């Protein structure tokens, strides 16, 4: 008999990335947070000590969510392009995850504009730390990771800040956290 949860999971698909499942089950720890980064865009050096890291190709995103959800993963944190976020968010919602933090990082004219939405205390800390970090804003984000999400508080705030400088790369990245409810 198919359960309601497995119906929800039934929207998941069997995979595009056969290697992923193996890598996941080989992991001994079931850390609270897994970090997902777009293989082709994010500078991830600063994150590796904070949590388990998955480099994501957009074609892996569906299977990644399924695998992590099946493994009982509590939180996924990501620094990706919006398209990967869109797919992960859509699939993780079907697994009962909820978005608890969302940041937009917009690079234009040598500036990086951050627009953040999340739990108030964590956002206030980020607002204080991102602008001074300038081009190293990903470090500030990495430090804030443990405080992002992981909250049952429903209140979200919107906030914006500008970094004094940014990497040369122009474009748009998003950081996000989805948590199992």
């Amino acid at each position: 008999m198919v359960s309601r949860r497995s119906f929800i999971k039934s929207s998941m698909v069997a995979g595009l990335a056969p290697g992923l499942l193996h890598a996941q089950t080989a992991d001994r720890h079931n850390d609270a947070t897994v970090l997902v980064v777009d293989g082709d865009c994010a500078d991830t050096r600063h994150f590796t000590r904070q949590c388990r890291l998955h480099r994501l190709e957009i074609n892996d995103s569906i299977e990644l969510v399924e695998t992590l959800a099946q493994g009982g993963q509590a939180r996924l944190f990501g620094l990706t392009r919006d398209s990967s976020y869109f797919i992960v968010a859509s699939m993780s919602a079907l697994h009962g995850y909820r978005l608890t933090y969302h940041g937009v990082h917009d690079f234009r004219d040598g500036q990086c504009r951050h627009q953040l939405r999340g739990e108030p205390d964590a956002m206030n800390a980020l607002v204080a730390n991102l602008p001074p970090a300038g081009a190293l804003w990903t470090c500030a984000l990495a430090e804030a990771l443990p405080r992002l999400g992981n909250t049952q508080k429903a209140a979200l705030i919107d906030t914006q800040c500008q970094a004094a400088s940014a990497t040369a790369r122009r474009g748009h990245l998003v950081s996000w956290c989805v948590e199992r409810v």
Partner: protein
Amino acid sequence: MKASASPAQPIDAANGKRALDALRTALGKDWVFAAGDQALDAYRDDYALAPHGDTRPWAAVAPGNLKQIQKVLEIARRYKLALWPLSTGRNLGYGGAAARQAGALMLDLKRMKRIIEVNERAAYAVVEPGVSYLDLAARLRKLGGRLWVDSTGSPWGGPLGNFLERGVGYTPYGQHSDTQCGLQVVLADGTVVDTASGIKARTDNLYRYSHGAWVDGLFNQSNFGIVTRIGVQLMPAPAGYRPYLVTVDAEENLQALLDALRPLSLEGLLPGRPTLMTLPRAAAYGATRAQYQTGAGPLRAQAHSRLMAEQARGYWNLYGAFYGAEALLDVHVRELQNALRAVPGARLHFADTRADDAAFKCRAALMGGAPSMDEYKTLDWVGAGAHLDFTAVLPFDGDVAQSASEAARELCHAHGFDDCAEFQLEPRALRLEIRLIFEREVVAQQRAAHAAVSALAARFVSLGHGSPRAHLAFMDDTAASYRWSDDALAHASAAIKDVLDAQGVLAPGKSALWPGRHSGRRK
């Protein structure tokens, strides 16, 4: 006949409770999602368009088999509910998982996801509504990969829902209306129809026709039944495969390019669904707009030149592929090279020189029977992107295409959008898909995309070009453009609707088919 939306009859509280109780008894409480259930949030258009208004459903149900669908239908008829079927529910760009209007009971068929049969000998599969292209591809891979799946650029959608939307893929099996073989349909009164044979013949999914009227097309882009099973022909993996790219720098050489390709296309020497993309459309696979231009408004000439130089592209970029044994591939390539001699500035490229071309990687996968989600990256062009498409069908004629392309570009630019169009080449016709990529959370952009499609539709109707597929918000307007002979086509469809679904419980307004619209016809 004026086709316009009228809101679904709201069900009163007492009847609503009775209907929900009946649904829970029929399906089990786990499979009925009513107001307050978070699961109901999923039935929306993720690429919403502000002017389209509210489409929130009243409730949703997820039957697990045909008998339960019949029970839901019985309850819908009893309580006069508007039922909106969904298969995988990924109709992004055309309305997503939303209904035409608010207040519907969503009939979510995702639980029905059996791959009923894969026949390797005769190269077909029979699948249920919840099966995605990714599911089917995974099964075929497990079986050894001797058969290919023809996927869309959005493979978490599935063969059944895509066929019903008259969708397309990119291998030689890419016209999904042509490769469907056999349907099982539940009519509004609960009758189950099997279109391929109905006598359980051994040719059910080998031969498309039974005896008498061929009705399969009736269920395509309509609301005449609930489709519960589809036969899909699968392409045997060919002996060889060679994807290619043709680039042409000058916008004004579109005419020469298409006129050179037409004879090849008619003779079947351009297999599959070669896709001719404008510069911004092709560039968006691997770049973002902000890398080339900041600020609003369409890309300027300077940005175009930089894109062309850095990505080694033309303004026109034709992605296609040849299939067969090596010797045959060589012949095909020679034919194409000969034809391209007539096109100023045309260059032919193959995989060895396109390693950095993200569009090539995605198109080569799709044309090679491997589903890819890479097309979603094109929406990063504007940051947090979504898209709305306007599609028109034109004769395969360079002159007509050149004017249509200029009209499309002018209107896209006038509404602040880049010229993200593509021509999909069919033997005799061109399917022009004009994509408005907009920031999905920005209401002003949603409005601009909506306004751009309205303007495109009006212009293309005036040029005499029909549109074969429309977003929920444009279905009525699109249908109204097919007005020949006092709306005879719409009346014929309305008459069928009134016979097959007299109460109008199935998807009111889908493809502008509203119940009860036939009776007023002037004689």
